[in-house]
């Protein structure tokens, strides 16, 4: 499917927002969150550029599953490091282990539904962390209400990820055309929510 000019503009804006976040939006954070967010938003930035260059065909690549895992995992790791001090080390181990598990089950053929189950668990944990943590912290008054936008971004990334996963599995919940049409919108809104949400502090 050919990419529309509007989709290109939205992807460009997504890239600019991600670039802003990498260069300025995470200053003052601890080293580990800076590394985690740099990886997460960095992947988003490079992915946005490559989508503009190659078009939606790039989504057919098997590497997309592995690369798209990096974004939620790194963002979730950064959030936990900043907000749940007692879980820092264990969540970091979970993040690295989860990424390795997804990579290994995709690179080396695993029996049955193991790759799908591993992917669902890893994405599920990371996605729920990004979605719930900021919203719970905002409701509890531990963070600025606008910080909950990070959770909204988490919900959007989850929606986009689900739609793409079903599409790649050959069981699309929406038509391919519609998914590809809304994907740039989701990516842009998601990044916007992250940038504004993180701007109000973790």
């Amino acid at each position, binding site marked *: 499917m050919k990419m529309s000019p509007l989709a290109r503009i939205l992807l460009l804006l997504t890239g600019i927002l991600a*670039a802003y976040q990498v*260069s*300025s939006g995470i200053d003052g954070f601890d080293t580990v969150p*800076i590394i985690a967010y740099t990886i997460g938003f960095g992947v988003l*930035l*490079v992915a946005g*550029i*490559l989508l503009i*260059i*190659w078009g939606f065909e790039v989504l057919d690549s098997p590497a997309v599953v592995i690369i798209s895992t990096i974004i939620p995992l790194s963002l979730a790791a950064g959030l936990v490091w900043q907000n749940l001090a007692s879980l820092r080390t264990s969540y970091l181990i979970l993040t690295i282990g989860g990424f390795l598990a997804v990579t290994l089950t995709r690179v080396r053929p695993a029996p049955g539904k193991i790759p799908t189950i591993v992917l669902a668990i890893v994405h599920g944990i990371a996605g729920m962390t990004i979605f719930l943590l900021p919203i719970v912290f905002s409701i509890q008054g531990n963070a600025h209400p606008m910080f909950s936008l990070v959770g909204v971004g988490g919900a959007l990334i989850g929606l986009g990820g689900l739609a793409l996963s079903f599409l790649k599995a050959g069981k699309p919940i929406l038509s391919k055309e519609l998914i590809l049409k809304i994907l740039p919108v989701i990516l842009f809104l998601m990044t916007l929510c992250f940038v504004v949400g993180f701007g109000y502090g973790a």
Partner: protein
Amino acid sequence: MTIAQSSIVNRQSKIKYYWSLTKPLQSGLLLATGLAGYMSARCPIFSIPTMIGLSISLFLAIAGSTILNMWWDRDIDAKMGRTQKRATSSGLVDENEVLRVGLLLTVIGVGWAVAMDSLYGLVVFAGWFFDVVVYSIWLKRRTCWSIVWGGISGAMPILAGRVLGLGAIDWIGVMLALGVLLWIPTHTLTFSMKFAKDYAAACVPTFPSTYGLEATRATIAISSVLAAIAMIIAGYGIGMEWGFLRLLGVLSGGLLMLAFAITFKPSERVNFGLFKYASVYMLVSMILLSI
């Protein structure tokens, strides 16, 4: 149509032809590197009149050398599908006039540069000399290694800009020039792979025709990696803020990923992707150096 109208149309067509002969996009990107080199110096001077002078002198010198290249290569351009429609190779402009225009732009551009600052003028002239004399006239039809000299020429604008800002050649300027020099094979070698038949028809030796596709891809990958390293070192040397260095690191990571892909999973699409991404990378690097 009256004679006056016809004359206006002819003049407009001629301007259009000559404008296309300056390769505006390529010249624009090289000019951007020159401006970034100047702005990277930050101290001791930064002035709008100097920047305007830099822009005009550098653009004229680059445009002059580009036009002279096309004048010299008009016979081989006519044999290649990609270039046979150029105004020089298709006979749309008088070849003697092209030579005169190329020389005139060169003299004005280099002369202006020398008048602004002698060392700056010398670097601009070196870029012109390496491009027109060493690359095009001497080596292009003899060896595939001519692209190294073309690359050195392409690296001169950023060095020239920095020299104008600093008044001297420093290691950061050399590193910036090295970054551009190492980035250029990503472009030229991708072109030589994509248009291999054209170059063969014109009997122009290229890396793919001399060393094969695998070695060419490896060269592209290695030069991309080294270009990224050079740009990061230069950025660090300039005193770029950590945030911008992080961003440069992220973009360099993308370049490394594509270099890895072109080496181990080569395809036309990856080639094209690296080619385009490298342009974006260089443009963003120049913006980051300028901020």
